[in-house]
């Protein structure tokens, strides 16, 4: 499907700007649960879709923001390529724009890179109802400030993404997942030791009892690395990483307590907070299901050099993301003012002040 709605979006934004009406930018709604509760008039970009340029030999794809991840990944797969940051969908209609706006990355993130690492360029609609283009379709580009990566993970508060260009990567020739019985403490040490050696490690997870390690690359090197690391091969490993972990289909994620995402320097020893834990990213991303008070969680994460996000459930009218220092918050406000002087886009979605 392909449809250019730039003119209509621009016109709708002009109307909203004239009336000072805040808007909530929407794709398919698959990520509406993230961040602070959305506010403003719905502003759908889901119809603005279509792949505009795909150059497998140059490792680049450009698509309109309403294009579904499914369509993009399907198109790449035909050429043996993929989005190496493994973006979570969290719903069947997940769009490119929302994935980049939320800056989410999947299991490969510490080994292959994050969403922003693969963003090469954007075309955006700013709060002054201008369509601007930054970055481009080439790997190396240092002309002007890196606005494309600033937009990544900004939850739409700086502009409406119209087009995104991404670097793509080849699908590895071979892949294997190994499972070992390990304690949390052992798992943290091992994941980081192996990541410090030249092994083709591309994903790691510890569910409390078992350590899962994914190896990807040339056939011979995967086989060789598997013999170094050891463990039981996992048969339906694609399902495990994609459906259970990336899409949070794992039983761990289906309990009624609030789900916290705790981000830490990878080798940080286990935090002494009560609740259920699941670790990813070599220990750098740890999920916690708990009824514990938010301030206790943030304090423990902060003391360990990390930060905590209320990912699912809990009170979304309060603080969801870790707070910023006064100086950093001021810079955020200044940037918000620079891109969205009327405060139209996704007000309060990340912080009440933005």
């Amino acid at each position, binding site marked *: 499907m392909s449809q250019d709605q730039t003119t209509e979006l621009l016109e709708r934004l002009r109307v909203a700007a004239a009336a000072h009406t805040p808007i909530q930018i929407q794709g398919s709604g698959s990520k509406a649960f993230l961040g602070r509760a959305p506010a403003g008039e719905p502003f759908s970009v889901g119809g603005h879709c279509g792949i505009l340029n795909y*150059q497998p*030999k*140059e490792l*680049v794809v450009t698509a309109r923001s309403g294009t579904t991840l499914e369509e993009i990944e399907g198109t790449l797969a035909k*050429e043996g390529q993929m989005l190496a940051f493994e973006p979570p969908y969290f719903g069947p209609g997940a769009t490119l724009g929302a994935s980049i706006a939320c*800056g989410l990355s999947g299991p490969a993130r*510490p080994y292959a*890179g994050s969403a922003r*690492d693969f963003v090469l360029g954007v075309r955006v609609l*700013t709060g002054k109802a201008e369509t*601007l*283009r930054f970055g*481009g*379709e*080439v*790997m*190396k*580009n*240092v*002309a*002007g*400030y*890196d606005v494309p*990566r*600033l937009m990544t*993970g*900004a939850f739409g508060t700086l502009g409406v993404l119209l087009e995104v260009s991404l670097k793509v*990567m*080849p699908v590895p*020739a071979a892949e294997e997942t190994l499972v070992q019985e390990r304690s949390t403490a052992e798992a943290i040490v091992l994941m*980081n030791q192996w990541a*410090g050696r*030249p*092994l*083709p490690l591309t994903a790691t997870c510890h569910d409390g009892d078992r350590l899962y390690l994914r190896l990807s*690359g*040339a056939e*011979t*090197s995967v086989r*060789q*690395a598997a013999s170094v690391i050891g463990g039981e091969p996992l048969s339906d490993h694609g399902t495990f990483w994609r459906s259970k972990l990336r899409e949070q289909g794992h039983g761990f994620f289906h309990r009624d307590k609030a789900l916290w995402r705790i*981000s*830490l*320097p990878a*080798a940080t020893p286990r935090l002494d907070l009560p609740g259920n834990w699941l670790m990813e990213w070599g220990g*750098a*991303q740890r999920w916690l299901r708990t009824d514990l008070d938010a301030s206790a969680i943030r304090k423990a994460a902060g003391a360990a*050099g*990390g*930060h905590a996000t209320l990912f699912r459930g809990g009170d979304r009218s309060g603080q969801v*993301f870790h707070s910023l*220092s006064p*100086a*950093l918050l001021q*810079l*955020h406000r*200044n*940037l918000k003012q*620079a891109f969205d002087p009327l405060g139209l886009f996704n007000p309060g979605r990340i*912080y009440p002040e933005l």
Partner: protein
Amino acid sequence: MSQLQPHGPGFHDPGLVARRAELVQELRRFLPPDGILEQEEEVGPYECDGLSAYRQLPLLVLLPRTVEEVQRILRLCHERDIPVVARGAGTGLSGGALPLPDGVVLSLARFNRILDIDPANRTARVQPGVRNLAISEAAAAHGLYYAPDPSSQIACTIGGNVAENSGGVHCLKYGLTVHNVLAIKLLLVHGELVEIGGEAPDSPGYDLLALLIGSEGMLGVVVEVTVRLLPIPERAQVVLAGFDDVEKAGAAVGEVIAAGIIPAGLEMMDGPAIKAAEDFVHAGYPTDAAAILLCEVDGTNQEVSEHIARVRDLLIAAGATEVRTAKDQAERLRFWQGRKAAFPAVGRISPDYYCMDGTIPRRHLPEVLRRTAELSREYGLPVANVFHAGDGNLHPLILYDANRPGELERTEELGGKILELCVEVGGTITGEHGVGIEKIRQMCVQFSPAELQQLNLVKQAFDPKGLLNPGKGVPTPRRCSEYRQLPDRERGTG
């Protein structure tokens, strides 16, 4: 000398002499005598960076040792509206560290300590004046290294790399500075310290780290950098392929990548560059080739063997006239030496050379090389091409003689045309050297007035008075409208 020799007052202008004396008096309250350079012969070495066609003596050069000293310098300059140009090793190639006659150069050369290497988390925390290569040398004991490797890595500093978002030969596979820096400590224009990014992934709020990296010293002063370290690959191996046609060499690059192999390095040189390099270092290049490719793969031992065999087959199928795999480490290093020495090699065959830095979508390589050759004939100035072929970053080297009247100006004009050609085919005016002072006019070609205005608003969000490295990176809208009105012949670089 360039027509863009800054037209400010000279070092001995009475107004500047008085201003200098007054500022020195204030600075002496907190800086030791060796931290202030004020004599003309002392500040002389700071008059330019690696782009020596542009020179300007600064008001003063300051060499602080502590973060607190830098904070006090910034506070003082902010109060008095004095521009500040931060500087690392001065190896930059776009005039990003060019001083201003009424501004101070803030050298971070004395911030040269590696503060911590954390092998468990695979990170290094360093001061901004630490040399790029020194990080890898210090990390080697743990089997780790810092991936971005600009050609100047022996001399250039990590602080400068952050300012320019430096790349290197290995960035197709391992990324640029922005992909390998985890956190920075930054002083804002009024001296306040902020910590941006962190060792924990996905810092809350906007990705200020990405915004700061490559911001050419215009948003803040970096006083500490935490980088990501990678395990040293088990093995690296390189293949050298000769082609009788540049177009075939370009197509061969696409074939390797389409086959699912991401080489650690994929470099191309054209005939003039091959001959210059071969005469200089005797790397064993085929001097009758129209182009050569150097394709390096790294990884585990088995992976490298598997990929080298496939790369050889692909290159032969793509029409290579000869394909040679380095038979040992010595030959591998020799193959690379020729590429790494390409700039000085060209420097040997011409009194001066001017290095351009455009990036293009690789499919347009034949067209860009053909039109560059046409421009080269039109201007009567030879051009040798060195190309980071994997990622489309082209370095045309224009050969000229600065002693011939008007030749530098014509060189800059030709350079500007080449960059505009890169934009025309969907590329960019700078892949890794930065805009600096050099390409500020071409920014008006790459960006619309509204886009430039937005970039200026980003600048104002950090530096409302415009004191950090003013005049670089992003042109003012007025400057662009003047440029657009120039007759075509005068729209040269800079």
